[in-house]
């Protein structure tokens, strides 16, 4: 069944119901002597349209997967399917090809069986589409009758529409929540499988990261899956080097913009700073890999460091810090601006200078908000992928030397998943375990940061 069909059906019948109910409401109006009505004609229209279209659309939505199951059962029951290989890839390939041929008869055809099956397939799916549309029309008809019986001048259509709108909004907001749950479930499931092969202790506390995608699944060397160097690299690049750049620059620009800059300068400097947040991270990646990395290498060479890496932790961290500046500065800006002006006046009235007021009163008062901003920035930085993929190395080094090559959790996830590994090998599954850890850490950081911001807001309102 083509997906356009339910949409067109729902829209068409909905529009018809809308027009009909609105016309009915207009005749009610014309016949009524009172000026005050329970609802506007368009409320009647929406009431009818939603009643007719929504149940039918829901049914068709559910019918899609049900009918494809029924079709598949039909196809497998047909005499042509009895000769199919019982299991394996070939059986799947033939069935897939039959499905393709059914909707596109001129498509590629490698198996003779597929051609006969396609026939069955096409017939069966036509049949079930027919049934589906029939039931949908019955449902729509039933709703239409129900609505027609209720279309009276005193129907509180306005309130009904209000409730229906709430339902629609609720459904859409559930989409985001359910997606998050789905992502979480996927991660948990795959991580569980990984921990079945490699012990969580080896993974979380081992210091050697060297997964071997060629090893047989029966002989896993768990000691090669120690993720500590990755965690360290992630922290060192995202939470240390990047923050050494982003916190001072972000804070000071926020202080200048909120406290010193004249409105005209602020009017263009603030958006200009925020443009940094809109630059695609891949562009930062070029910048880090092609400009900053080699430059740092050259400086290190001049300083007499032997054989420095051009994929140093420093270059990725510095560029990531620049990317994070707008996050820190806009959070700091908001929190400083949220400190009541009574604090500032109180300090100025004591004879404090502007600088003393900022350092001793405004920034301490805004500190919870600033800290929350930094936490959000860190969670952003450690989850950032493109810059480190382009500028950091894939070598897992456990070192405190910023000139050395280091790798991060995200780089390894990309490396593990872009290979040819199969999805039941720990090398691939390790990517999910890494993703799970990253997910938990950023979730915790965001959660704490939001709590802090909330308490800070409450303190001043």
């Amino acid at each position: 069944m083509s997906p356009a069909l339910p949409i067109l059906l729902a829209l068409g019948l909905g529009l018809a119901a809308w027009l009909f109910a609105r016309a009915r409401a207009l005749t009610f109006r014309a016949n009524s002597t009172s000026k005050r009505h329970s609802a506007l004609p368009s409320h009647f229209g929406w009431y009818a349209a939603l009643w007719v279209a929504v149940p039918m659309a829901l049914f068709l939505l559910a019918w899609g997967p049900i009918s494809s199951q029924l079709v598949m059962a039909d196809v497998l029951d047909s005499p042509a399917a009895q000769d199919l290989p019982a299991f394996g890839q070939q059986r799947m390939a033939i069935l897939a090809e039959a499905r393709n041929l059914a909707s596109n008869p001129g498509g590629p055809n490698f198996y003779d069986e597929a051609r006969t099956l396609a026939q069955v397939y096409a017939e069966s799916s036509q049949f079930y589409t027919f049934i589906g549309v029939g039931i949908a029309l019955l449902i729509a008809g039933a709703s239409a009758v129900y609505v027609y019986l209720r279309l009276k001048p005193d129907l509180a259509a306005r309130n009904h529409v209000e409730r229906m709108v709430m339902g629609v909004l609720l459904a859409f907001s559930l989409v985001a929540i359910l997606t998050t749950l789905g992502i979480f479930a996927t991660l948990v499931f795959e991580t569980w499988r990984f921990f079945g092969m490699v012990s969580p202790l080896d993974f979380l506390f081992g210091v050697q990261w060297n997964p071997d995608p060629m090893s047989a699944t029966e002989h896993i060397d768990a000691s090669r899956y120690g993720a500590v160097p990755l965690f360290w690299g992630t922290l060192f690049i995202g939470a240390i080097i990047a923050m050494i750049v982003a916190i001072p620059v972000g804070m000071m620009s926020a202080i200048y913009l909120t406290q010193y800059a004249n409105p005209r300068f602020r009017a263009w400097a603030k958006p200009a700073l925020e443009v940094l947040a809109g630059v695609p991270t891949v562009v930062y990646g070029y910048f880090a890999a092609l400009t900053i990395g080699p430059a740092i290498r050259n400086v290190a060479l001049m300083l007499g460091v032997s054989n420095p890496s051009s994929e140093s932790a420093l270059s990725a961290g510095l560029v990531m810090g620049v990317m994070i500046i707008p996050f820190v500065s806009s959070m700091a800006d908001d929190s400083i601006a949220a400190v009541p002006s009574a604090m500032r006046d109180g300090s100025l009235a004591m004879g404090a200078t502007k600088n003393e007021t900022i350092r001793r009163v405004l920034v301490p008062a805004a500190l919870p908000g600033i800290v929350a901003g930094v936490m959000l920035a860190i969670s952003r930085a450690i989850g950032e992928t493109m810059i480190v993929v382009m500028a950091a190395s894939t070598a897992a080094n456990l070192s405190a030397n910023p000139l050395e090559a280091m790798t991060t959790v995200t780089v390894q996830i990309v490396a593990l998943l872009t290979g040819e590994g199969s999805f039941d090998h720990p090398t691939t599954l390790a990517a999910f375990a890494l993703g799970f850890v990253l997910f938990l850490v950023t979730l915790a950081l965001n959660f704490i940061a939001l709590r802090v911001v909330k308490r800070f807001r409450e303190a001043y309102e």
Partner: protein
Amino acid sequence: MVMTEYPEAPKVRGAMPSIDAERAEHGPAKMTARDVSVYYGEKQAIDSVSIDVFSEYVTAFIGPSGCGKSTFLRSLNRMNDTIAAARVTGEIALDGEDIYASGMDVVQLRARVGMVFQKPNPFPKSIYENIAYGPRIHGLADSKADLDVIVEKSLQRAGLWNEVKDRLADTGTALSGGQQQRLCIARAIAVEPEVILMDEPCSALDPIATAKIEELIDDLRGNYAIVIVTHSMQQAARVSQRTAFFHLGHLVEYGLTSDVFTNPAEERTKDYITGRYG
């Protein structure tokens, strides 16, 4: 007797002879304003106000909302500077020194002319740090022991010491409203100002806390020139020795509190005091 640097008396229509008598007895005014006008952008908030404020007296500014009394108060320690559109003309002097002169150090001025705000605004720091803030930035204490002395003395003078001496490390914002306001007064006197400006200091407080603050103002007046803006005429009558009545940006009448309340020279003052408007 000693003459002020501004020999001519303020040109106030309702000025009473008794004020000149006070001046003669009391020496030069602590702060003098001559023909002061304040503008917010195009709008004129204060129109040529001239007034003298004396040490050891509490001077109350009364008048209906929007009459400019707070604006005028804020121009006495140049807090209007923080509002970009505000402009002050005329002359305001502290001990004869023009505070709007280009050489005036605003930081020093505000240390000498302290301020207490309408809503208690303790810093989100400990009680101790709230008081120590001013002495620290002005370098009034040479040692931790000095600072401890200043903090204790200021809290004692503000009548708060006995209530908070065991919890100086607690945050100042955790105190009750009245305690917070006394903390702000203690904070202001910790830098040993000469003038204390109070902008409706009791308007956010309950009657008991208000009574405590009024008592405190009375205790403090011997050492400072205190100027208080208030909406409560009873409060002005209770705490002040001088009362100035502002209306629509003009200083209508200025005199001894007893005279202003019992025998106002101006019809408008009388109407306001008897509750005819405002």
